[in-house]
């Protein structure tokens, strides 16, 4: 029994699933489901299709280099059956999967840091520039509560909250 990788989305194909397409140049394409197969028939490039692993790896959304990937290399030589070896391998597979999952999650988290602060800054800037879309500039002069408060180090005021009052 062998767990293959889908050619299009790179997910694992378990036995009993999927279609295998053999081209005349003897290249075998394995697909996990008909979605991937149909995309292949449409001649779509998996590196350009957003939900595939190929795209995510190429565009730096997912971890590419890690020592946990080394364990999953394809081995063509069958190993002699050894009960201890099998037991240890099964335990190791579980552990490696867990480690890989945590590392991938951390990678994505690291990629997302700085997003919240950036969003906040962008919102502030937009408020400063485009307040005239919401309220006339003449009114703003009369009613100073609608403008952004001057940054005072003591109190942390959320400028968006002020806008919500109207």
């Amino acid at each position, binding site marked *: 029994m062998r767990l293959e990788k889908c050619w299009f989305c790179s997910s694992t*194909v378990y036995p*009993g699933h999927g*279609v*295998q397409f*053999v081209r*005349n140049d003897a290249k*075998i394409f394995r697909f996990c489901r008909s979605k991937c197969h149909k995309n292949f*028939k*449409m001649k779509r490039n998996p590196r350009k299709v957003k939900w595939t692993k190929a795209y995510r790896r190429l565009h730096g959304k997912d971890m590419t280099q890690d020592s946990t990937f080394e364990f999953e290399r394809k081995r063509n030589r069958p190993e002699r059956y050894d009960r201890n070896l099998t037991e240890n391998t099964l335990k190791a597979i579980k552990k490696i999967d867990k480690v890989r999952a945590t590392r991938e999650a951390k990678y994505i988290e690291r990629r997302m840091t700085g997003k919240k602060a950036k969003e906040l800054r962008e919102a502030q800037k937009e408020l400063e520039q485009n307040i005239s879309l919401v309220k006339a500039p003449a009114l703003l002069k009369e009613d100073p509560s609608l403008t952004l408060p001057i940054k005072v180090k003591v109190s942390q005021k959320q400028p968006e909250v002020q806008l919500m009052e109207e």
Partner: protein
Amino acid sequence: MAATFASKCSRVGRSLWGGLGNNLSGLLSASHETACNHFLSQQQRTFIQMRTVLKVVDNSGAKKVMCIQALKGKKGARLGDTIIASVKEAYPNGKVKKGKVVYGVVVRAAMQRGRCDGSEVKFDDNAVVLVDKQGQPIGTRVFGPVPHELRQKKHVKILSLAGHIA
């Protein structure tokens, strides 16, 4: 009935286009032209029946044969089955000549065939290896990939001649 006739027409016509399958050509001829460019590359995936033209992938001298009978199978032949065929196109100096009635073993079929592990295999085209009544191949070489379903059908000689086993 009209649909099968149209599909048969399209199948024969497709062979003249050198295997460029057009799934909907027969059906589209009567109806409106739709922009389904990506269907042009698909082979029609049904059984191999009377009037199916197959490619010959050994060096017996024939190039194209037309199936006249599928032995075993009410609906038609599939991957690994034997057929009776008539040689439609042949190389000038070969073991078989045009118009000869021969037996053949289907080694590649566009229609998917289920494997015992539950997955399915399909090839790019319909191809046949000419054999004699006993099942021994007439030619001495086989080109392209062949499936290992032939082993179960006891066509071991063809497997041994094959360059690549899918």
